[in-house]
């Protein structure tokens, strides 16, 4: 990858050989695993981060650390507070209390643009592509330290045209990676939903971040591209970046995550290596206890993954039990609303009168 900036080229060539292997091999924790366990080499440490919305506690994270140079997945049922936690960490929202540091420097109260400049760049769950800018302009916007962004120099194109050219090359490079290069001159508004997700991710990478935070990067991206994207994310790690991503697709989590943090009702309820975390009762509780508002399709998908990777029989039994408890689920696993409809129509079912009981 002929990168315009020399540092990146260096890190890529060396990265594949040395850093990549080293980080992969290095241990993440040196202590017994528990929620909030200290990491050997944390890049991001959050303490007592709490955010209420009225009476509703959206985030209440006592302590969590994100390991440097690893891919960490943040999972949890809908409404667990993952997006809110992202918003808090990146300065888009203010916590009621709490502190967090990035590379040893406190980030509490730092405005979002400064968070990004320190190398912590995020994407949004609801994509924010800039519709009336071309795809290429969207990409160029991601580059940092542009001289032409300052008012006076912006009027003198000769000052920044070389930099602009380098940025454009880099942008085209990334676009090609994300299979968007053919669309470079189109308005971003003309992209499909999945393509916008890709564009947003590619744009975030324009700034060569230290930590990339992706909020459901794969939602709406087709399976073939998902595969190649997984490769890209692994590449990011190889280039020395840390990745923190939110994802509901357990397959993706299983495939690329080095570490998994599980949130439920605002709290970190479990952490661990992907394989082990699946067997954690807290995780099963978090997901299965609240399965009525998770994507049931994912749940059954999870079974396949669990079998494939050989997770403890307990979990498989649990999941199977869940599926059997709802006969319609097995028949039509992907159609959540259909399931709910059936549930309501079930004659004399206790679940109709007392839904709570039926769920537990």
């Amino acid at each position: 990858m002929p990168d315009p900036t020399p540092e990146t080229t260096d890190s890529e060539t060396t990265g594949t050989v040395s850093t990549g292997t080293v980080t992969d091999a290095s241990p993440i924790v040196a202590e017994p695993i528990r929620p909030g366990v200290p990491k050997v080499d944390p890049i991001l440490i959050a303490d007592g981060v709490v955010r209420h919305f009225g009476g509703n506690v959206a985030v209440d994270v006592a302590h969590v650390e994100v390991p440097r140079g690893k891919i960490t997945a943040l999972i949890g049922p809908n409404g667990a507070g993952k997006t809110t936690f992202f918003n808090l960490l990146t300065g888009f929202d203010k916590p009621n209390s709490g502190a967090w540091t990035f590379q040893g420097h406190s980030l509490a109260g730092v405005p979002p643009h400064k968070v990004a400049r320190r190398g912590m760049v995020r994407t949004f769950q609801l994509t924010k592509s800039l519709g009336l800018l071309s795809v290429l302009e969207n990409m160029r916007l991601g580059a940092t330290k542009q001289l032409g962004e300052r008012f006076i120099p912006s009027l003198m194109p000769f000052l920044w045209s070389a930099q602009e050219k380098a940025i454009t090359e880099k942008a085209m490079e990334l676009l090609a990676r994300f299979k968007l290069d053919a669309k470079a001159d189109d308005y971003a508004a003309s992209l499909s939903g999945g393509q916008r997700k890709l564009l947003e991710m590619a744009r975030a990478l324009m700034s060569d971040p230290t930590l990339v935070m992706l909020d459901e990067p794969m939602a709406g991206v087709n399976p073939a591209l998902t595969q190649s994207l997984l490769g890209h994310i692994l590449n990011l790690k190889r280039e020395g970046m840390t990745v923190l991503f939110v994802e509901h697709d357990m397959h993706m989590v299983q495939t690329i995550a080095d570490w998994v943090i599980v949130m439920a009702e605002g709290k970190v309820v479990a952490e661990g290596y992907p394989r082990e975390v699946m067997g954690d009762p807290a995780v099963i509780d978090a997901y299965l206890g609240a399965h009525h508002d998770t994507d049931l399709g994912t749940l059954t998908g999870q079974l396949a993954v669990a079998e494939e990777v050989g997770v403890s029989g307990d979990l498989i039994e649990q999941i199977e039990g869940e599926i059997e408890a709802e006969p319609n689920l097995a028949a039509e696993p992907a159609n959540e609303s259909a399931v709910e409809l059936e549930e309501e129509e079930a004659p004399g079912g206790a679940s109709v009168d007392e839904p709570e009981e039926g769920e537990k």
Partner: protein
Amino acid sequence: MLDWTFLPLTLNQIISPQTIAYALAALGLTVHFGYSGLLNFGQAGFMSVGAYFFAITATRFGFPLWASVLAALVGSTAFAFLLGIPTLRLRADYLSIVTIAAAEIIRYTVQTPNLTALTGGSDGINGSEAGFEAINPIPDRVYKIGVQPYTNDDLWVIIVGWVLVGAAALFVWQLMRSPWGRIVKGIREDEDAVRALGKNVYSFKMQALIIGGVLGTLGAIINILPTSLQPDNYGTQTTFFLWTIMLLGGATTVLGPIIGAIIFWVVLSLSDGFIAVLSTANIVPLSQVQQGPVRFIIVGVALMLLVVFRPQGIFGKKKEAYFSA
């Protein structure tokens, strides 16, 4: 019979100082709204602040021309800060409310009896053009363009005005094709996305507010040079005229506001003329007093129709209209 003498005169609107002034101010509004998405409903306020700083320093304190212009620019910059600091972090509607309110307040304030010595009260200020006319190189005689006679001072304003319009258009054009312009356009689309990319959105919005305001101020100076400074020329209707002009020509183009201003003033003086002719001939039942408001009704209706049916302006392409109607 019917008196059509106004017809050739309307063509002179094409180059009139008023057209120049509105072209500049609308260009400023384009920087605000068209490019940066700032809902400024108080461009008249920026114009009047600049005009007063210019006229007061020129007539009351005897500043030389350059210093008066500088004072006007400083004045409108300060005004931009005053309005921008509380509102640019908030939803777009707040800026619209605060700007429309502030523009009206400027208009009331300058007419306060206690300030009359400084602002001339509701009579406004005369004579601020002395410094400008002193450097007029055009020989003193009457020039004729079309059927309209011009003095050398009239021509001087028109020439300087159009040079200024050209320069301002080039300036905005260059600004908007630079990375700076990319950022403000990004802010217009989604400011959180731009923030997430490490750009200080607040600072860019403030810069855009200042730049657009300064263009409004330059327009106001051109406006008062050939006539005088009248506070009531900068009421809400002026701002709404500017919006109509901007939307007429296309809010995201550089030439749009300039062509829009020309069309606007030609059409407006045509319609004024027609209505006057028709009502003198008793074809339209409007008294002398009732003719004045008609143009405002036309503008109001035009504004509504434009924004709904042709948000991209007369020349723009539909998909470039940034609020899809």
